[in-house]
């Protein structure tokens, strides 16, 4: 009895500490926002290493909240770093793609081995999304940054609505596969550790799913964001893949989609190691911690925090693009 009480107190303490940490992070971002509102007077007022360190710390915290909130790091990275750091949006988007790519690559092998990512489901979708991500990246680098900022702001606000309202279905009902998914053998079996049972799955509405992935890839390339926020609902709610398979396959798809777009940014000279590398390392370390804090952090609290952050960052991007809040 006493042990249970002590364990409960410890868990409560851990929860409070973790949530206090997140609250501090949120406040520091709002403070950064206030600083940015003053116009980032001299990018050189802070030395290069100060910005690199700030970027690393920011990405570390973004990595922590990205895992329990169920969004990829890239979708948080671009609006927040683009809004509150002095880097041009071109370089932020280039780094954002690499952040999403590195996270997806790190997770990819274990997802494939565990059956949570499925090669037969992923490859046809990834091919179309890769091709359209190239087009998105090229258009994103060709149009004025202000226009990209406005479109980014609107998209982020759309993601906020999607995150706040979208339902999830752990095991959607798929009565029969459609002809295309049947021909491509897009089905499988995965072991659900939580239920300790093997789950057989299949998908339907494949042509519409493929069409939507063309649009998703385009947005990923255009904004330099991972597209897990869009991949998972399409795979899960539309095509009927189980939630865990959808999340795993979505992450794996990003290894192909983001690498195509990343090449365009790299070849264009829009990747700076001083921005990309601290971001990638910070995000990966944060995600590593975040995965271990999954049992301590309250997912619903983190999710609300991330939605608030995205709402703030989306408004900032939109107002910055419109020239209202520079």
């Amino acid at each position, binding site marked *: 009895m006493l042990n249970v009480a002590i364990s409960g107190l410890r868990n409560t303490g851990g929860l409070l500490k973790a949530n206090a940490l997140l609250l501090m992070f949120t406040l520091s971002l709002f403070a950064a926002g206030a600083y940015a509102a003053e116009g980032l007077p001299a*990018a*050189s007022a802070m*030395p*290069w*290493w100060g*910005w690199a360190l700030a970027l690393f710390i920011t990405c570390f915290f973004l990595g922590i909240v990205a895992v329990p909130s169920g969004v990829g790091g890239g979708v948080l990275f671009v609006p927040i770093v683009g809004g509150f750091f*002095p*880097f*041009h949006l*071109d*370089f932020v988007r280039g780094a954002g793609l*690499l952040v999403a*790519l*590195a996270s997806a*690559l*790190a997770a*990819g*092998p*274990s997802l*494939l*081995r565990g*059956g949570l990512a499925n*090669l*037969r489901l992923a*490859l046809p979708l990834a*091919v179309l999304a*890769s091709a359209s991500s*190239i087009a998105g*990246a*090229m258009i994103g*680098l*060709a*149009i004025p940054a202000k226009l990209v900022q406005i479109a980014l702001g609107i998209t982020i606000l759309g993601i906020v609505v999607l995150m706040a309202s979208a339902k999830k279905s752990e095991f959607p009902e798929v009565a029969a596969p459609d002809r295309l998914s049947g021909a*491509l053998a897009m089905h499988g*079996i*995965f*072991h659900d550790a939580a239920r300790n049972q*093997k789950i057989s799955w299949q998908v339907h509405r494949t042509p519409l799913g493929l069409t939507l992935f063309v649009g998703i890839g385009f947005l990923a390339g255009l904004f330099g964001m991972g597209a897990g926020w869009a991949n998972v609902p399409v795979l899960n709610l539309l095509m009927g893949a189980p939630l865990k398979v959808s999340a795993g396959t979505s992450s794996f798809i990003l*290894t*192909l989609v983001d*690498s*195509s*777009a*990343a*090449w*365009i940014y*790299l*070849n*264009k*000279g829009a*990747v*700076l*190691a*001083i921005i*990309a*590398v*601290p971001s*990638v*390392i910070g995000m*990966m370390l944060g995600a590593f911690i975040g995965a271990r804090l999954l049992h301590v952090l309250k997912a619903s609290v983190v999710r609300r925090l991330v939605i608030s952050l995205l709402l703030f960052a989306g408004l900032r991007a939109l107002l910055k693009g419109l020239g209202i809040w520079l």
Partner: protein
Amino acid sequence: MNNSNSDTHISVEQQRYATWLSWGSRSGLAILVATFLAYVFGWLPARIPLDQMPNVWSLPTSEYLHQTGAPTGWHWLTLIGQGDFAGLLGIAWLSGCSLLCLVVVMPIYARRRDWIFLAICIIALLVQLLAASGMLTVGH
């Protein structure tokens, strides 16, 4: 036709893809960290001094390229001895490691006469190669 591991239900090609992806991503991250440390600690000279970076990282790409004379396409490879471009090696490696994974699963599909997935792999490979080629040029 049994093309999967009966215990895990993971296909042979998926396991092979995972193995190569694991090696590719780990080695890419190692290169990324090593070259970045060489860059920031000055073990490799930087073409654009680090203390000058805050003056150029807020510029649009086209303006940045114009002011710094930084190369586009694959020309950064000729400057690989300089810290700021050595750092791009790890990034290119990470961006390209899926190419190898696609190549190593193709023989499995070919042996199984799974022509549709062989074709999908070839198209995926071509899309990646096109993106990596540097032939697609854009600008503000």
